């Protein structure tokens, strides 16, 4: 397809979409009977509900089914795929790595975001200072991985040049396990800290001034103010930020794929899911890994949503 043809196809699908929606809305809005309101509301809501049903509900149930079948989805094997996940040495390492990612990334990214938000609040170059941390959020994880390749590369990487200069020698940063996991995690922290900083910064600015004035009258200041006033005031937001980054971390596979390809003992759950499902074409094990991601994400999301509700209620 040529350039023009591709863009034309994109315009065509948008045109078709609006034509269909207009048709449905015009037809249903003419119904004046008592059933009118019902039919009209269905016209508004059913397209979205139908797509969500086909795109999320049906596949989720289907995946659970696939996870109980063998590699080629021909016969049921019970919980064998799950048993493999929790007994196979390589997959156990994948679980261990995932645990490391999930613990380190949210905590460090949130901590950096929080410290930076406090340090730059009402600073002279606040906007610029914040934009610097903020920008990696707009970059794809593929782009971020490429950016960091120029840091970690053996020969032309910045990190080796640095460690060499200060006398720590040169290292294969992405090959030597288990530290290579940490170097990969750094990339995701670099991307996610901006999200934490932005959300926390807004929350910090919303702390009522009378609380602060009162604390100051009691002689609270500096680090104590941070520890006993700032942090408790934004606690619900902190939890939302932590859980949101946890969810992102569990699902992100791009960094591992682009840097080590899961080699050198760096694979994580989301990458292993991708590898098993679409490279080894082992749909049974792949689906079981997907369901495991689902199960791990579930409590975090529920907790996240409950915290958000609390925030809204305040």
């Amino acid at each position, binding site marked *: 397809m040529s350039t023009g043809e*591709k863009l034309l196809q994109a315009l065509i699908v948008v045109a078709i979409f609006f034509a269909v929606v207009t048709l449905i809305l015009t037809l249903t809005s003419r119904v004046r009977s008592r059933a009118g309101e019902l039919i009209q509301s269905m016209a508004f809501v059913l397209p979205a509900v139908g*797509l969500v049903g086909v795109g999320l509900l049906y596949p989720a149930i289907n995946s659970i089914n696939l996870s109980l079948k063998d590699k080629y989805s021909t016969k049921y094997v019970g919980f064998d795929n799950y048993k493999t996940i929790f007994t196979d040495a390589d997959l156990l390492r994948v679980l261990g790595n995932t645990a490391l990612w999930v613990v380190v990334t949210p905590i460090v990214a949130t901590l950096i975001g929080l410290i930076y938000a406090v340090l730059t609040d009402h600073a002279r170059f606040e906007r610029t200072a914040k934009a610097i941390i903020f920008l990696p959020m707009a970059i794809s994880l*593929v782009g971020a991985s490429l950016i960091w390749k120029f840091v970690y590369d053996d020969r032309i990487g*910045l990190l080796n040049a640095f460690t060499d200069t200060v006398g720590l020698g040169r290292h294969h940063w992405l090959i030597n396990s288990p530290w290579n996991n940490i170097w990969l995690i750094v990339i995701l922290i670099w991307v996610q800290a901006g999200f934490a900083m932005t959300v926390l910064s807004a929350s910090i600015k919303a702390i009522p001034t*009378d609380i602060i004035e009162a604390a100051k009258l009691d002689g609270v200041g*500096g680090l104590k103010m941070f520890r006993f006033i700032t942090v408790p005031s934004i606690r619900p937001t902190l939890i939302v930020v932590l859980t949101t980054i946890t969810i992102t971390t569990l699902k992100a596979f791009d960094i591992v794929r682009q840097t080590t390809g899961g080699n050198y003992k760096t694979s994580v759950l989301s990458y292993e899911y991708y590898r098993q499902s679409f490279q080894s074409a082992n749909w049974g094990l792949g689906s079981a890994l997907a369901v495991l991601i689902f199960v791990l994400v579930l409590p975090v999301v529920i907790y996240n949503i409950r915290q958000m509700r609390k925030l809204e209620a305040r």
Partner: protein
Amino acid sequence: MTVTPIAQVPVAEKLTAPAAAKKTLTSPWASLAAFVIAVFWTVPTAGLLISSFRPEHDVKTTGWWHIFTHPSFTFENYRTVFSGTGETGLFPFIVNSIAITVPAVIIPIFLATMAAYAFAWMRFPGKDLLFIMIFALQIVPIQVTLVPLLNLYVKLGLQGQDAPAGGFYSLWLSHTMFALPLAIFLLHNFMREIPGELIESARMDGATHVQIFLRVIFPLMMPAMAAFGILQFLWVWNDLLVALVFGGFKIYPINAQLAALAGTRGSDWHLLASGAFVSLIIPLIVFLSLQRFFVRGLLAGSVKG
């Protein structure tokens, strides 16, 4: 609120909590910490940008900071990336990204606004249950959906080069479906803030729901739709997983093609650098120019109120 003597106490300056914390933290160490973080966040990207302008031989043999001691600039990398043919010419893939992103942003926003309107201002049986179900489906990670959806698309003939529109439909559909739960939820939150009297009085005057939706709701919802639109744009533009699973080489977005290049031409640092920069400059521009909408949407999503 009780009037406290605070008003009479000569408080020299009004400080916010973090400002007060900062006052003590503004020791040289604190400034240094902020500075170090800022440097840490800038230098890697600067390295990429500088590398993209260095000649091939230089990029491959020396670190990018050598440009300060041995300056050498070239636009050759960008020329290859834009006009090159075969896998190193990235222009067709930027076009793919645009062709994927435009419908995958417009369609879900419109569908979600419609659904959000119905959930907020229309009456129909099972409304609450349906809303809770859609809300709950936000928790489904897309990983769980990909294999069954792939099977479905193959059955429907939407998958592969020979499918209608070269296989774009499976990408448009997937991005739309994955966006809907969050979009409906966020837009519903905004929708509830519109005063009910506005809709009631329009109803009294005999306006149909479609008229109210198009003439009253739509203009009011523009900022919220823009906020979600940026989120969705960034998500689709930067997506790798959906593109790899449902797209083929010919319809790969720039991000997926870049990922593939990093695998096959891993030593061509000069091309990867300029390619990566081209791929990230577009979302950066969109992001910076629409930032104020984005922050609003972001906060509505995570710390509303």
